[in-house]
């Protein structure tokens, strides 16, 4: 590399640097809010892992106002009916994983939510007001208090 090329390179770099500083100066509010938002997201991820990071042992099925618990270690097929004994959903517990096998709602979003195996994860069915969640027994009792 000869000297002239080097000097042009340095000049170009200075121009880029000045432009970069200008851009940052003009967009200070934008950049600040973006950094705050990114910190917020990271903080929420950390908080979540802080609250829910154990291996779950209980499957909690909340359907309307009834709450039932099943052990995660035992394989199980649970049919969910409404008060008129109309069959709605089928929840399957197998090998430490839980999933919604069948649903009679039109969108089948609960089936698309796949298999869950970590503490805190849930399968949600909005039309039938069902929520299947994985928890650790005796963990965070204040959460259960809120649930009632």
């Amino acid at each position, binding site marked *: 590399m000869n000297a002239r090329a080097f000097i042009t390179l340095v000049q170009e770099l200075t121009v880029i640097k000045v432009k970069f500083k200008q851009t940052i100066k003009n967009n200070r509010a934008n950049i600040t809010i973006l950094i705050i*938002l990114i910190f917020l*997201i990271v903080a929420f991820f950390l908080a979540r892992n802080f609250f*829910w990071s154990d291996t779950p042992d209980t499957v909690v099925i909340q359907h309307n106002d009834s709450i039932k618990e099943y052990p995660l270690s035992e394989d199980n097929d649970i049919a969910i009916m409404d008060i008129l004994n109309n069959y709605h959903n089928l929840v399957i517990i197998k090998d430490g994983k839980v999933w919604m096998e069948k649903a009679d709602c039109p969108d089948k*979003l609960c089936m698309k939510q796949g298999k869950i195996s970590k503490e805190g994860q*849930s399968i*949600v069915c909005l039309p039938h007001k069902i*929520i299947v969640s994985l928890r650790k027994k005796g963990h965070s009792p204040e*959460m259960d208090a*809120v649930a009632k």
Partner: protein
Amino acid sequence: MKSKKLSFLGLFLTAALILSYIETLIPFFYGIPGLKLGLANAMVMLLLYIYGVKDCILVNIIRILIVGFFFGNAFSIIYSLVGALFSVIIMVILKKTDKFDLAVVSICGGMAHNTGQILIASVFFGTPYLLYYLPVLLLSGFICGGVIGIISKGLVTRLKVLLTNG
């Protein structure tokens, strides 16, 4: 002038409806309840920046009701309305300050939308366990809001001259 504006609002409503429909066709789900692209938000941004708050809210409410009756149910209408309420409030406030880029406003709107939806779902089910998905939904709101924001920024700069002068 008034009839021209009215017809353009109708056109935007139609475009927003089509975008909402396209969104139901995209399987943008990956096992997380509530995750979506928010294509119709591009139209909301356009209305907010070209016509103002009132028209934006009006068209948005009509859009949510029509989409709800066509593709969803009573629950999905409530969730959409709450999400829209959260995002519009945040976006109007940020726009009023006049300090933020359109894309940044859109990002905040997307995150507010997802927060609102997860909160109303938690209230509806009476359990805090849905908050497990809050971080993921915030992240998706950030990314999707950013993408939609960049798209709508391009649209606004090109269409604003056309719609206000012509």
